């Protein structure tokens, strides 16, 4: 009986590992496509791709980081803040995300000053 339980647990872990790897690969494909279109100035399409990526794999910090950058470019500053925070929660030590967030905060503060003078 314990052996059967153990094999079920092992099988479940292995399968969830495969599923996780699949989700990450799909999300990564979306992220890469998003980068390619953003580099051509198609930011709306990039947002769609990165939103898909974060839905597919909500643990993928790169997806949230890129989404934040795109929101920032489109002037959706509150959404950008939220996405940066998600990215940093997933990867608190990621220097690139942190650097983006610091630059974003300067602009966000300025915009807030404008709205609440």
């Amino acid at each position, binding site marked *: 009986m314990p052996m059967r339980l153990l094999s079920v647990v092992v099988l479940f872990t292995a399968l969830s590992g495969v599923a996780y790897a699949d989700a990450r690969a799909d999300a990564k494909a979306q992220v890469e496509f998003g980068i390619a279109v953003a580099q051509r100035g198609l930011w709306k399409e990039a947002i769609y791709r990165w939103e898909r990526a974060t839905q597919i794999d909500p643990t993928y910090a790169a997806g949230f*980081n890129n989404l934040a950058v795109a929101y*920032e470019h489109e002037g959706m500053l509150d959404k950008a803040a939220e996405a940066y925070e998600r990215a940093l929660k997933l990867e608190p030590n990621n220097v*690139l995300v942190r650097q983006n967030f610091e630059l974003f905060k300067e602009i966000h503060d300025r915009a807030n000053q404008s709205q609440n003078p």
Partner: protein
Amino acid sequence: MTGRINLKILSCVLAVGLAGCASFYEIPIETPIAAKLDVSAFQRVFIAGFISGGTDDVDGNLETVRLLRSQLRMKSNLRVVDADVLPLLDVASGRTEAGSSQAPRESGADAPEIKNEKDLQPYEHIFADADYWKRIGEEYQNPLIVTGTVLFTPHSQAGMVQREREVIDPLGRRRVEPVREYMERKGFILQEKFIFIDGRSGAQIYSEALREERLYNQNDNTPALSSYFELMDEIIPRFLSTLSTQRVRGSRVLIK
């Protein structure tokens, strides 16, 4: 010889490999920051004039009007009214707080000394004089009127300052290191209060106070006018962001 060729091949392979594995990309972005004021109701803007004071070396009223008008012509969709600058100090002296007219101060008479914010206060009632601004508005086809106060005052300060010093080490290499030293510096403070008035009703719709200061080494002898322009360089983007959406350029990193 063979070793050198191997090294070249290896570095080529590494370079190609690294390019393929690049996991981040720097990308330029432009973040739009919405204007503070909705000016869609106006087609024209009239920079009317300012009550100014501080140093006599710069005419804060004329210079500010000239600079704001030229910036708005370049960076705003509003048509800039090109009219004489209002002598607001004289107008304010000639109107009581209740809004009734008195004989205005003669423009040839000695201008009252305005050296600080307190000296400006007796004249600030003019900004709340809706009848006066409504009349100005009618004269210039109901523009958005910009007025306010400008105080440009000399300033000096002594204290510890950190600056960078170039040093050459015993091996002849140059490097820059920070040094803290006591210095006496002088400069200017620019305080501007911009007041936006609806030319149709004469009512104030928004106001914003901005302050900037610059200190220079005592030996620099920076003229007051160049310091004024340096300080205005800092203030103008904030002034413009009241009237139009500004796009802030920068770059961010996308990650794979």
